[in-house]
């Protein structure tokens, strides 16, 4: 058997716990009220264009993009705008949001709600990027970078490879896996749309080898479509990858698929690659072919206690639905829950309230048992360098931790703190249970602010 590809340095093997993999995607019943935050992406928050009392339908624009790196926000339900207020986000801080009282399920007439797959891509590259921008599509893998910006290739750069990220290396999460099984056709049309937008002829769909059914299914669909003359041979290929966390990191995936290494502080563009998540590709399909903006996403609701009780699953959830509605859908919080994590267990954030709305970037809701959620006693660093071996970016996490604690920001910057992808491999591997990543995150925040202020000073001169 051919040796499976993977990235070269670092990586860990957390227990997979893909407990909900056999559960088909279910439609979550519409909640009574949604709270749609105006900032669900990296960049400037969107500007609200509706007023209190406005009647909205599914797909109505609620807030328009403001600035280059920004994304519009659309209504995910039909009803009346109750108020424009602040709601608690996953971190407990209050952010602006549009609160809508749900009334029926009426869609904007411009949205094609029929289930037929439209195979033919008629839009030109510019039209595709415009449709993605209008649809408010952002990176659904969790980073929530506006997709339209990613696919607007600046002059002087050339891209030759598109990589679709179906790795889903985070433990527990199965949303992308289910999408690949259930919406393979849409995914492939989405991939073709993205290839056309970039003007590339080659793309990979990277999937870890622990999802053999998804690999097989996609290969079969690609074969069928190829026979129908839709996908020329060799343009879209499934790339099985060796199981290793964080395979799904953008830079790790590029390294695994093409052997190219994205230099420090540079973008995948600089090595001729663009990476996009499976759910993003499907959102792109919806935005371009069906005129349907990013108004829902698949959320894996899971946890050991929950699945042991025969509950949990993968749900199609409207953006803005409070977490409480998901908890109700799985029959309440399982006993002994000590922490609820939104996103994956490695990179996700624990939430402090059940009123937090589901946003474009939330791929999972994990109920973690109190005993498992507790942090173990922190002990001294014994300089074993396990974190150095685990870091997929080739950094020295123990050193960065010390530098941040000592507030030596310039040194931390020199040691590459900004290259950290926050995968959590260092925390996972540390035998002394040190909260290494917590400190590095603080370092990234502070050094990032330093760099921005430096840039402002320079621009001022």
């Amino acid at each position, binding site marked *: 058997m051919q040796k499976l590809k993977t990235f070269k340095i670092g990586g860990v093997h957390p227990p997979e716990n893909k407990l909900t993999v056999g559960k088909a995607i279910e439609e979550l019943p519409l909640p009574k009220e949604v709270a749609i935050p105006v900032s669900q992406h990296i960049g400037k928050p969107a500007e609200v264009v509706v007023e209190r009392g406005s009647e909205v339908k599914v797909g109505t624009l609620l807030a328009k993009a403001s600035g280059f790196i920004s994304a519009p926000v659309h209504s995910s339900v039909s009803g009346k705008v109750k108020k424009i207020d602040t709601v*608690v986000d996953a971190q407990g801080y209050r952010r602006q949001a549009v609160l809508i009282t749900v009334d029926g399920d009426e869609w904007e007439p411009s949205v094609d709600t029929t289930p037929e797959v439209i195979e033919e891509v008629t839009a030109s590259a510019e039209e595709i990027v415009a449709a993605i921008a209008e649809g408010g599509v952002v990176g659904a893998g969790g980073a929530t970078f506006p997709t339209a910006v990613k696919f607007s290739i600046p002059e002087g750069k050339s891209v030759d490879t598109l990589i679709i990220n179906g790795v889903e290396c985070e433990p527990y999460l199965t949303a992308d896996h289910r999408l690949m099984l259930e919406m393979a056709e849409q995914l492939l049309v989405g991939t073709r749309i993205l290839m056309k937008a970039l003007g590339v002829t080659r793309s990979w769909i990277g999937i870890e080898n622990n999802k053999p059914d998804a690999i097989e299914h996609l290969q079969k669909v690609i074969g069928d479509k190829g026979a129908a003359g839709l996908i020329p041979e060799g343009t879209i290929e499934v790339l099985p990858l060796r199981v290793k966390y964080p395979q799904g990191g953008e830079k790790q995936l590029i390294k695994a698929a093409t052997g190219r290494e994205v230099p420090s502080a540079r973008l995948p563009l600089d090595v001729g690659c663009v990476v996009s998540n499976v759910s993003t590709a499907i959102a792109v399909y919806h935005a371009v072919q069906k005129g349907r903006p990013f108004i829902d996403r698949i959320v894996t609701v899971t946890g050991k206690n929950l699945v042991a009780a025969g509950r949990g699953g993968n749900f199609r959830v409207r953006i803005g639905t409070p977490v409480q509605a998901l908890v109700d859908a799985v029959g309440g919080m399982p006993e002994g829950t000590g922490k609820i994590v939104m996103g994956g267990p490695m990179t996700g954030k624990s939430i402090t309230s059940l009123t937090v709305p589901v946003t474009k970037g939330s791929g999972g809701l994990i109920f973690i048992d109190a005993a498992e959620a507790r942090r173990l006693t922190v002990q001294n660093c014994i300089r074993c360098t396990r974190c150095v071996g685990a870091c997929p970016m080739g950094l020295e996490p123990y050193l960065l931790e010390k530098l941040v604690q000592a507030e030596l920001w310039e040194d931390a910057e020199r040691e590459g703190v900004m290259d950290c992808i926050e995968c959590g491999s260092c925390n996972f591997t540390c035998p002394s249970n040190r909260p290494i990543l917590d400190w590095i995150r603080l370092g990234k925040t502070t050094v990032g602010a330093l760099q921005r202020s430096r840039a402002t000073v320079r621009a001022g001169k």
Partner: protein
Amino acid sequence: MSQIILYSVLTLGVAAAAFATILYVTARKFSVEEDPRVSEVTEMLPGINCGACGFPGCSGMASALVDAADSGDISHLNCPPGGQETMKNIGRYFGLDAGDIKPTVAVLRCGGSCELAPAKSNYDGPKSCALAHSTFAGESGCPIGCLMHGDCEVACPFGAISMNPVTGLPEVDEEKCTSCGACVTACPRNLFEIRPVGRKSRRVWVNCRNTEPAIVAKRNCAVACIGCGLCKKTCDNIVQAITIENNLAYIDPDKCIGCGKCVPVCPTNAIVATFEPPKPKPKKTVKEPAAT
């Protein structure tokens, strides 16, 4: 044998003389004239190099003082840790007026103790306010309140701040505090303010920084300022020291006369005083009279 000794003594002696000459000449030629007053003034300053004066350490302050003295006025300069005493000494040294700078002290503007702003979630990460602040809103849910991990205690160079284990909040020891401002910089939520000590240590301040709407603020904390304006109404008849902005009252320390009449009218006990405030008139009692 004696020749060797002679030669070595001669060579070394000549070399030494040559180097001595070079050193003497360079030292003369490149010598930096330092005002002798600078070192004398440095001696008079506390010598802790805290930087509260705005200059790089005590010697920086000393040269600034000497420069200011040359232009005839040192009243705008102040050494907060040294206080009035030090500045008067320096003024006497120069034969100039030191200026009447009121003594100040650091004041915490949060009353969200463990009891009054109970924890709704449990944070088990590293004990650092800066880190907790960048991670989440805080255990009580108040995004502006004290995080209780004691970054200020660590930052204080005088040991004037101690974390009270019962309330969870830091406490400032007025005797030790030199108002150097280290805590103001260290607190990621900017909860400390340098305020005048006040006559007989009588001072009144709003013990909250929360600008959220009243209903939200009250949900997280029993002693949050809700911006109701009762204190402003009371003060407007006296000195107009209180302003309300973004649902938050602020008492201007320069205008406040420390009468304490705003303390009992506050419905949430968000205004505190360092002394026993006057009892409100029985007629105007608002729910429960406040005791600090």
